[in-house]
């Protein structure tokens, strides 16, 4: 990683999405994450890399896993952190995102980690403040650190990502995880398939260079790894699928389906899981599952992102934002 850094490679000011990163930048993050894995295994889980930096975690949407993972990453890097949730803050009093941003800026913070229900909100914020912005999930656009931790997990298992066949299963239409996953995997040279009912597939998804499957059995037979997306319960009430029961019967990842494929396969899930809907419990808890290693890697990847952005910070003026 020292070599890459000395070659002048950086992430720029923000991490908004994997679409905007090159393969080299993605590899830089994954390589940087490797030594950070070890920090979390120490009895004293702390490194002084971001001492004196202030980070605001701005969560406009409920999140447990991602928020805690970022917070651990920040604390293990010795940053000072503040958590802002949309309820009980000025946001719930009708303050606009741009005003929230300007107020944070006025407090001279270094970084903002933002989770927001509107696609493009992280881009919006990044264009308006000098601080580094990390997208922790914006609407149905991207969730880049999730995409990165999936890549790190695959690399741990297979040694490399290039040439792998990965099937993204489920509600691709509403999934920011799917978009980040597609960009990250494609850039690192993996083949990507998507599988689900057409009512949950975005228009023209094939143009992103992915293969489309309508039968989950075909996707499993083709893939080296599955990334199983969470199926939100409201998709049924809003009419995208007839019932969760049928979804599980037609598209659910079950141990029978995996056994029929007769091969080793890696099963990922970004969480939180709906056991018995998109994934059966015996798969989630079974030998092919890497769901908990994903969570562990999440902290390391987020440490790497924060560390690299902090190092790249003096560049913000030359870069003039991302777009």
């Amino acid at each position, binding site marked *: 990683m020292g070599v890459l850094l000395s070659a002048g490679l950086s992430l720029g000011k923000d991490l908004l999405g994997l679409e905007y990163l090159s393969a080299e930048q993605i590899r830089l993050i994954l390589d940087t994450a490797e030594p950070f894995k070890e920090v979390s295994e120490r009895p004293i889980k702390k490194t002084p890399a971001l001492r004196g930096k202030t980070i605001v975690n701005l969560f406009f949407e409920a999140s447990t896993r991602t928020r805690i993972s970022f917070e651990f990453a920040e604390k293990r890097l010795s940053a000072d952190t503040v958590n802002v949730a949309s309820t009980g803050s000025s946001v719930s009093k009708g303050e606009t995102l*741009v005003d929230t941003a300007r107020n944070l800026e006025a407090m001279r913070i270094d970084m903002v980690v933002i989770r927001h229900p509107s*696609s*493009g*909100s992280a881009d919006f914020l990044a264009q308006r403040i000098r601080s580094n912005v990390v997208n922790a999930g914006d*609407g*149905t*656009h991207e969730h880049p650190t999730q995409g990165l931790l999936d890549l790190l997990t695959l690399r741990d298992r297979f040694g490399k990502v290039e040439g792998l066949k990965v099937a993204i299963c489920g509600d691709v239409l509403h999934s920011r995880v799917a978009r980040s996953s597609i960009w990250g995997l494609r850039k690192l040279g993996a083949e990507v398939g998507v599988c689900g009912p057409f009512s949950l597939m*975005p*228009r023209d998804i094939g143009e992103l260079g992915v293969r489309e499957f309508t039968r989950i059995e075909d996707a499993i037979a083709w893939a080296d790894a599955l990334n199983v997306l969470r199926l939100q319960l409201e998709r049924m009430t809003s009419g995208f699928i007839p019932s969760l029961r049928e979804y599980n019967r037609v598209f659910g990842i079950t141990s029978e389906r995996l056994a029929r494929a007769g091969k080793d396969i890696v099963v990922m899930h970004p969480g939180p899981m709906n056991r018995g809907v998109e994934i059966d419990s015996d798969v989630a808890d079974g030998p092919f599952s890497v769901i908990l290693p994903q969570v562990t890697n999440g902290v390391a990847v987020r440490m790497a992102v924060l560390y690299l952005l902090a190092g790249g910070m003096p560049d913000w003026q030359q870069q003039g934002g991302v777009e």
Partner: protein
Amino acid sequence: MTRPILIRGGRVIDPSRKGDGVADVYLQEGRVAAVGTNITGEDGARVIDAAGKVVAPGLIDLHVHLREPGQEDLETVATGAMAAAAGGFTAVCAMPNTDPVLDNQGAIGFVISQAQKAGKARVYPIGTISLGQKGEKLAEMGELVGAGAVAVSDDGKPVMSSHLMRTALEYAKTFGIPVADHCEDMGLAHGGAMHEGIVATRLGLKGIPAAAEEIMVARDIILAELTGGHVHLCHMSTRGSVSLIRRAKEMGLRVTAEATPHHFTLTHAACEGYNTNAKMNPPLREDLDREAIRQGLKDGTIDVIATDHAPHHYDAKEREFDDAPNGILGLETAFGLAVTELVEPGVLSLPELLFRMSTHPARIFNLPGGTLAVGAPADVVVLDPAARWSVDPSTFYSKSRNTPFGGRMLTGRCDLTIVRGRVVYDRAGG
């Protein structure tokens, strides 16, 4: 009495009489008094040298939002009428989705009186189809027309009930006015923020499929056939709509259609980077749609160019894409965009363009103007179709600044606008 005006030596294009040649135009007592060569007006007439310029009947925009009453911080009838004049428009039709809406004769009379006080471009109010624009009960169209409404529309709120649309077409036919419809199946559009396609897929924004427009275009055409009423289809955006209208016209139905400068100029790619100034309804579509709109304007399937001028406060657009309001300004960039995007590439000749921006709009909404025939109202523009200029929103006469065209180089602009024989805009400041 207004001072007579002699416009000398310009290329006079009058699409109403297929006239195109160098001539003088003499305006007296609010009317066109003479068009010919070597006209010498009365002593004291104001003489305007139009050598190298185009003299034409004033442009007419059938679709603008002037925000008054209710949202005077965005636009007023006066500022909108001034923006219109600066864009070469001598008349605009104001949509009724104000607050309160223009669903009664008092409200129509208010807009007309504000326009008279302003004394810039003419403003013709459009009344609502339904009371309160609620899509339930017909507004009192007879009284709306009596007060000065030139058409009815629930623009912005599509008429979802086919029964209401049918009775509206029948009832409006009684008074000889068109029913202008914003074609959008609300169930199918379902909270979408931009065109449904690859850009929306990448940006993670909810899409509005082309079919949401086309379903309602098809319905309106079928109801036009049923009723014999005149349906005017607002801001057409898809290739499917163009082909449906083409067939309706072949059947001889009373269907007219408009397209906006942004739909013949931009595509959904303009939304990249979550540019809220590219958010409008109907949304910007694909290359093939833009091409079909241009082709429709060429072959007459699309009758007129209308701007859908939609002022918004700058901070309303300064927010998340999902939450930003729809629409952009149109009046002060329409002619430049039309010359740059349609005339320069050879889609339309300048006389054909003026037909679609002046003569034909007047005809299909049965408005005065659109002609330089002797005795016609002295609503005249002097245009410089060769002027190269860069769009600078800070110089707009509109109260708002929401345009995706800031900084764009355009060819063609308006030099002088005359309404009722009086100069209401002179770029040189005279």
